[in-house]
């Protein structure tokens, strides 16, 4: 049963990623695109975890850990850069 649930859940996450991609391409503001990228990396993280369950391997979880850390840093840096034109305050 868990194989069918994995397939269904993978389909749902892939549709969610497609919707985020649409918002990434169509977003009227640049912050909409940053938000779409944030959603996209979280969903990609879930897809990697589901593939790790399916193949019963540990390598995918290392990749998911790296995605979780780098995605957060990317979102924070992009949001600050969009707001201030600078990432690190120089004062």
């Amino acid at each position: 049963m868990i194989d069918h649930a994995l397939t269904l859940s993978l389909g749902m996450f892939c549709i969610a990623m497609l919707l985020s991609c649409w918002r990434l391409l169509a977003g009227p503001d640049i912050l909409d695109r940053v938000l779409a990228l944030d959603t996209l990396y979280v969903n990609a993280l879930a897809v990697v975890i589901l593939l790790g369950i399916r193949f019963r391997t540990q390598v995918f979880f290392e990749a998911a850990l790296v995605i979780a850390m780098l995605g957060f840093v990317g979102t924070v840096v992009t949001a600050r850069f969009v707001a201030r034109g600078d990432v690190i305050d120089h004062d």
Partner: protein
Amino acid sequence: MTHEALPFTVDLLASLLLVAGGAFALVGAIGLARLRDFYLRVHAPTKASTLGVGGALLASMLVFGWTGQRVVIHELLITVFVFVTAPIAAHLLVKSALERDPARRPPEPGTAPDAPPAESSPTPPPTPPA
């Protein structure tokens, strides 16, 4: 698949968690694609996607914890990371939006806005004369 079979309850619980997580992520992405303002759009995916990843992580912990194949330290680390960082990222996004364009700030809750918001069912565009 060639993996060893899980007991029925573990199988059922993991399947339910997986499907619920996928449904949460789907609802969040639909909200991201369909809502009409940035301040509305920031609500949907930041919470629902966190729950979606949480469902997948719980199912993974259940499966790998039952089979005893490996330690579940990775799931715990990812859970801590996602659940701590996702609200911070959303907060920074909204702060950036307010700094960029303070004029688009929505009215405070409880105060009457100047113009009533548009109805949820927009008026159909006028049909051109034939």
